């Protein structure tokens, strides 16, 4: 029989932030074993417990670890692009203590065995906590319903066809209706495939200048409009992934006003970058959906400010060098996002768009609540999944230094503010920045 872990760690003099309750104090936090034992101002009075390891956190923020609800891991199938280990190492380096993987692996996560394989591998790594979405349709083909009920029993936290939208309206209607039976959430990549065609950048001046085939913004807007009608018909729980246009925010706002059970996320790419980033044919900025105009970028910031956009997810889409070092139209879509999620999200704070607590909310408790995970909050007795970071400390993004196997980041070379110093999972330090 193993001895229970009763190791005590005392974090002293930290700025403690709990976005779930709005708590923002300077104080101390004690973990015993895997859990948060207590926290508060002047928790230890004159002295912390003598049997505790002391970590002086003066000047640093201590918050729940980040919950990233949209991560692509290429294992099983394409481990050369990203394995569960490399993704988990990238995650903890970025302060992410829980990540949720898309089912678009090879094979697809559309049966219990593959889902359990991911869970087992992740447990063995003992790094970030890993959950997975189940496929909404078999093989992500958009034709037949996957076994949503059984997959949910096996641990799938929600359902999606990953990076492809469910195009067939009848199939989408049935997916939503069936999911509603079990109160499961469907996550859609809102893009009308026929309208997007073989486009590689957003329609606009940049596409015209570069002579690249383009995807109109309406591809996202039309799909969202359709889906809202279907959600209304079926009463299902629906989540729109990585919204990127001003109209998308308006559509979600209207749906919420109507009382539909609709939520959405965006990724840092869409509030920190615009279409100009693809200039000079930078394939690192070839993303799906494509980077939009600056008016859209500003609308996404406004959507985050108003709370219409519930969550910020990294949309980590790792690719290997060979997939990106190609002419723009032939290069793969996607960017590495785990290691820049916190720092780029903190742009919202530094630009005075959002408070620190509101920003953290969108990367911690909001996604956790949507997916029903015991994460993203500070609570006595809850798992001690924490991040210790300096919100104002500057550094420069260098893709080559990433822990992720994927070095393709559209933020390469960008100066950012907000550095992760320590990531703690179940009370254990799993990442510590080199001093």
């Amino acid at each position: 029989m193993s001895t229970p872990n009763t190791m005590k760690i005392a974090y002293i003099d930290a700025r403690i932030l709990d976005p779930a309750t709005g708590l923002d104090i300077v104080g101390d936090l004690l973990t015993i074993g895997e859990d948060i034992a207590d926290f508060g101002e002047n928790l230890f009075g004159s002295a912390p417990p003598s049997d505790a390891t002391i970590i002086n956190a003066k000047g640093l923020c201590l918050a729940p670890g980040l919950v990233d609800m949209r991560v692509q891991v290429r294992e099983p199938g394409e481990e050369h692009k990203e394995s569960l280990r490399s993704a988990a190492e990238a995650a903890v380096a970025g302060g992410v203590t829980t990540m949720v993987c898309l089912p678009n692996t090879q094979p697809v996560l559309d049966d219990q065995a593959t889902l359990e394989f991911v869970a087992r591998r992740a447990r063995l790594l003992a790094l970030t906590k890993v959950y997975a979405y189940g496929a909404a349709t078999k093989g992500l083909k958009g034709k037949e319903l996957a076994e949503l009920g059984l997959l949910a029993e096996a641990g799938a936290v929600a359902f999606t066809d990953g990076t492809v939208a469910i195009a067939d309206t009848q199939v989408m209607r049935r997916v939503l209706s069936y999911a509603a039976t079990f109160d499961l959430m469907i996550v859609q990549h809102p893009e009308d495939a026929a309208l997007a065609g073989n486009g590689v950048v957003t329609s606009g001046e940049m596409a015209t200048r570069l002579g690249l085939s383009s995807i109109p913004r309406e591809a996202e807007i039309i799909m969202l409009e359709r889906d809202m009608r279907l959600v209304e018909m079926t009463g299902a729980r629906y989540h729109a992934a990585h919204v990127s246009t001003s109209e998308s925010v308006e559509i979600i706002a209207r749906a919420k006003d109507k009382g539909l059970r609709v939520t959405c996320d965006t990724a840092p790419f869409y509030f920190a970058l615009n279409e100009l980033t693809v200039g000079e044919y930078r394939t690192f900025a070839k993303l799906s959906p494509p980077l939009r105009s600056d008016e859209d970028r500003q609308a996404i910031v406004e959507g985050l400010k108003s709370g219409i956009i519930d969550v910020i997810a990294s949309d980590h889409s790792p690719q290997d060098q060979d997939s990106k070092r190609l002419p723009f139209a032939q290069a793969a879509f996607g960017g590495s996002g785990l290691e820049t999620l916190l720092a780029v999200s903190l742009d919202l704070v530094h630009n005075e768009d959002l408070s620190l607590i509101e920003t953290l909310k969108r990367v911690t408790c909001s996604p956790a609540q949507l997916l029903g995970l015991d994460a993203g909050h500070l609570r006595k007795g809850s798992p001690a999944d924490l991040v210790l970071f300096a919100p104002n400390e500057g550094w420069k993004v260098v893709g080559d230094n990433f822990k992720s196997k994927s070095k393709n980041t559209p933020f390469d070379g960008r100066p950012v503010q907000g550095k992760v110093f320590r990531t703690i999972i179940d009370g254990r330090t799993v990442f510590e920045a080199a001093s």
Partner: protein
Amino acid sequence: MHDPIFPHHHLLGIEGLSPLEINRLLDLSDPYVEVNRGPDKVSESLKGRTIVNLFFENSTRTRTSFELAALRLGANVINMQVEASSVSKGETLIDTAVTLNAMHPDVLVVRHPQSGAVKLLADKVNCAVVNGGDGSHEHPTQALLDALTIRRRRDKIEGLKVAICGDVTHSRVARSNFYLLLTLGAEVRVIAPRTLIPSHLDRLGVQTFSDMREGLKDCDIVMMLRVQNERMSGSFIPSVREYFRFFGLDREKLSLAKPDALIMHPGPMNRGVEIDSDVADDFERSVIREQVELGVAVRMAVLELLANNLSADRAKGSKP
């Protein structure tokens, strides 16, 4: 020494070039027109240099024009037609660039079906690179030869009204011409069905028309673009017949342009699709054959200038 006015290492596009730089290229091209018309066409100015025509897409006309230009300057020329098959073998564009670079060419002329591919390649080699047409992006030597043709016929480009008609969405010729003509002060119009006009052209300073009669009014130059037959039916336009009816250049539509308006076409022409033979062969107004002729002169000037800039780089020991 670098050319004092045009110090660039490559010619990847017209966008970003100044009027001075464009005129420098045209000025250098002009004398070659006469050289090419004379009996003694071959000089030794690029003797010993290696020029590689690297074509990932078929184009007999452009390739021959570059080849002739290089030969007339005394250079050694190698033509490489790279089929899509080498890509299916797993060789990427960058692999090809690295392999070629190891053979120490002086100038690479690259044509590729993907926009931006020539730039990608130029970043990986240490010789001069000329964009021989990349996807729907740019075809700079075509715009230069068009400009030279116009300049020789009209003595100027500034203030001319130029209509560019046809499939602008997919046309690299059109993009290079927009940049060049606008930079030199021409008024540029585009005439096409809306399915063939890319968005936000107005932001480049181009006026758009969907009616030939309206768009051609008082134009000095009518530049027709080739409509690619594979794009003709179904999604972009209903039929060749309908296209010709509304957007094909015939005598009647041409009568709305200025009486002495020049007719241009980058070739090869689809007679009876975008242009009527009657107009195409009008020897007084059609300068289509002259465009082909002047293309060699322009390419001679470009190759010579870039090769000399490269020599200056190499003498200094710096990478282009």
